C-alpha cells in the first residue's frame, strides 16, 4: 500500500512538473527566440525560424545587431525616458490611488458611495476612446514653468505622466485590499491619538505591501507599453519613450529584424527586472485575493 501511494505521489508530481514545464516553455520560448535572433544576421534569422535553431545560439553569432541598433536610434534616451515616465507615474499613482482608496474605505463623506460608483464605471471606458478629447485638452492646459505661465502640455513629460496617475482599477484594487484590513487596527490607532495621515502611513501602508506591489506592476506594464498616447503628444525625440522608438526600425520596406530583436531585448530588461524584484509580493497578493486573513 505504501509503495502504491508513493508511486502515485511520484506520478502525480511528474505530471505536475511536466505541465508546469510546458507552460514555462510556452512563456519562455518567445523571449528566447527574441534574444537568440538578436545575435544573428537577418538572412540566418529568417532561415532559422523554420526550425528549432531559432531558439538556439547557433550559426553566425555576434553582437553586431546591438551596435547597429544603437546607431539607428538613441536607445539610451528612449529607455531613460520610459523609465523616468513609468517610474514617476508608478510612484505618484501608488500614492494618489492608495490615498483615494483610504478615503473611500475609512473616511465618511457625503457622496462617497456615488463617487466610487462613478469610478468603477470608468473601468469600461478604454483609454483609446478618450485620447482625442484628452489631446485637445492637453494642448490648451496651462502650466507654471520657468518662464511663467505657459499654455499647452504637448511635447512634455507631464503630458505622458499626469493623465495616468489616477485610475479606477488601481483605486479599486486598493479599496478591496483595505476593506479586508481589520477595522479595529484603524480604530485602535485613532484612539491612540493618530490622525488620518499617520494611520495611512504607519498602519495601512506597512500592512498593504502585496497590493502596492500588484498595483505597481500593473501600472508599470501599462506605462512602459504605452505607444499610441506618446505618439500623439510627443514629437520631440529627446522625450520619446521606447515603444515609439520602435518606429525607427519599422518604417522602411526592408525591416532589419536582427536590430529589431536587439532593440526589443534591450527594452525588455527593465520590465523583467522590475517584475522579478516584486514577484514574491505580487504572487502573495494574487494568492490572497478573495481570502480573508
Amino acid at each position, binding site marked *: 500500500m505504501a509503495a502504491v501511494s508513493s508511486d502515485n505521489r511520484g506520478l502525480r508530481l511528474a505530471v505536475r512538473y511536466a505541465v508546469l514545464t510546458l507552460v514555462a516553455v510556452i512563456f519562455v520560448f518567445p523571449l528566447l527566440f527574441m534574444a537568440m535572433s538578436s545575435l544573428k544576421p537577418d538572412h540566418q534569422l529568417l532561415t532559422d525560424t523554420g526550425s528549432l535553431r531559432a531558439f538556439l545560439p547557433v550559426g553566425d553569432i555576434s553582437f553586431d545587431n546591438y551596435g547597429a541598433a544603437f546607431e539607428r536610434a538613441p536607445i539610451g534616451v528612449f529607455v531613460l525616458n520610459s523609465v523616468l515616465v513609468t517610474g514617476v507615474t508608478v510612484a505618484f499613482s501608488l500614492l494618489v490611488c492608495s490615498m483615494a482608496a483610504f478615503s473611500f474605505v475609512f473616511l465618511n463623506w457625503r457622496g462617497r458611495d456615488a463617487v466610487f460608483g462613478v469610478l468603477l464605471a470608468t473601468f469600461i471606458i478604454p483609454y483609446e476612446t478618450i485620447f482625442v478629447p484628452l489631446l485637445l485638452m492637453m494642448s490648451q492646459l496651462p502650466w507654471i514653468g520657468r518662464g511663467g505661465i505657459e499654455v499647452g502640455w504637448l511635447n512634455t513629460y507631464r503630458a505622458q505622466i499626469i493623465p495616468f496617475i489616477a485610475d479606477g482599477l488601481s483605486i479599486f484594487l486598493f479599496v478591496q485590499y483595505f476593506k479586508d484590513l*481589520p477595522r*479595529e487596527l484603524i*480604530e*485602535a490607532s*485613532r*484612539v*491612540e*491619538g493618530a490622525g488620518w495621515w*499617520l494611520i495611512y502611513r504607519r498602519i495601512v501602508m506597512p500592512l498593504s505591501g502585496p497590493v502596492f506591489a500588484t498595483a505597481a506592476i500593473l501600472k508599470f506594464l501599462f506605462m512602459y507599453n504605452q505607444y499610441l498616447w506618446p505618439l500623439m503628444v510627443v514629437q520631440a525625440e529627446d522625450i520619446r519613450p521606447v515603444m515609439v522608438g520602435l518606429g525607427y526600425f519599422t518604417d522602411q520596406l526592408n525591416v532589419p529584424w536582427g536590430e529589431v530583436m536587439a532593440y526589443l531585448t534591450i527594452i525588455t530588461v527593465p520590465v523583467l527586472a522590475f517584475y522579478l524584484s516584486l514577484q514574491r509580493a505580487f504572487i502573495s497578493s494574487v494568492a490572497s485575493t478573495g481570502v480573508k486573513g
Partner: protein
Amino acid sequence: MADVILRNVRKSYGSVDVIKGVDIDIPDGGFVVFVGPSGCGKSTLLRMIAGLEDISGGTLEIGGEVVNDVQASERGIAMVFQSYAIFPHMTVRENVAFGLTIAGASKEEKERKVAEAARILRMEHLLDRRPGQLSGGQRQRVAIGRAIVRKPRVFLFDEPLSNLDAALRLDMRIEIGKLHKSLGATMVYVTHDQVEAMTLADRIVVLKDGRVQQAGAPMELYHRPENRFVAGFIGAPSMNFLDVEVVSRDGNSAKVRSDVVAEFAAPAWREGIPTSGGAILGVRPQDLRPVESGGALSGSVNLAERLGIETVVDVTLRDGARVLASLAEDRVFEPGQSIQLGFDPGRAHLFPRDEPADAD
C-alpha cells in the same frame, strides 16, 4: 483621570434607534461595567464614549468637557478591543509605545514607560517579539500595556476577555482588577459575562434595547433588581419566575399564592404590584432548598446536574412550570423523584405581571 457623564445620549442609524436616551454618571476613578444581551447597545455606547461612533443626540462629558464633536484621537482615552487590535507589523515594544510615539515622547521617556508597563503586566521578555509569536493572553497583555502606558483619562474595555480560554480569563480578570486598584483610573468595561461584571465593577449598568434598565452596585442589582429583566439577567442560573395571585397587600408586603405556591407574604416594594390580581413571583435558584415537608413548592425532579460544589436540580412543578434549584452541596437526585422546595419568604421577589422579562 476624569469622570464621564452621559446625558440623554442617543444613537440612530437612519430611522433605527439603537441607543434611546441614556443617562449614566461614571465617577472619577470608578469601574463601571455595561452588561446586557447581544444587541442591547452596550458596545455602541462604549464606542460613542471612545469617539468611534457619532452621537446622534444628548451630551457626553469627559472631565467636565462636552466631547460630542471631539475626535477620538483628542479625547484622552485608551481602549482595549476584543480582538486585541495590536499592530502585526510592529514589535511588542513598538506596539506599547505607539501612542507615546505619536505624542512625540522622547526615546528615554518611551523606554521608561514601556519598561514600567511591561513590569506591571509581566511581559518584559516579550518586548522584542512580534504579535504573531504571542499567545492570546500575551496579546491581550500587549493591548492593555498599550492602553496604560499613556496614562489616559479613561480606560475603555470592549469585551477584552471573551477570546481567551476560561483559565486565562480568570487570570486576566484578576489582573484588570488589580490594575484598576493600582492606577485608580476611570474604567468602563463592556461584557456579556456577568461574573466579570459582578467581580470587577463597583457599578453595573444593565442595558436592554438601548435603554438603561438599572444601574447600581453589583450586590444592589443582585438583591434588589428593579424589574424582571434585571432580575433574570443578573445571577446564574437565572431567577425562577412563577405566576401567582396577590391575595392582599399591606404596604411593602403582599400575600400571594397559586396552585403550586402555598400562601405566603412576599416583599412588595416595586412599583406596579396590584393590591389583588396577578403578579410574578421571582425566586433565585440559590434561595431554594429541599425540605421534607411543608415546602412552598412541590414537584418532581426532571434532571439533576452534579457539579461537585453544587447541584443544580431542574424541577417540574405540579402545574407544569419548571424551576431550577441550585443547592450548595453534592447530592444525588433521581429523575422522577418527588421533591419539595422551600425558601425564605424575605428573599422572594414580586414583580408586576405586565412587565416583560425576556432578555432578548
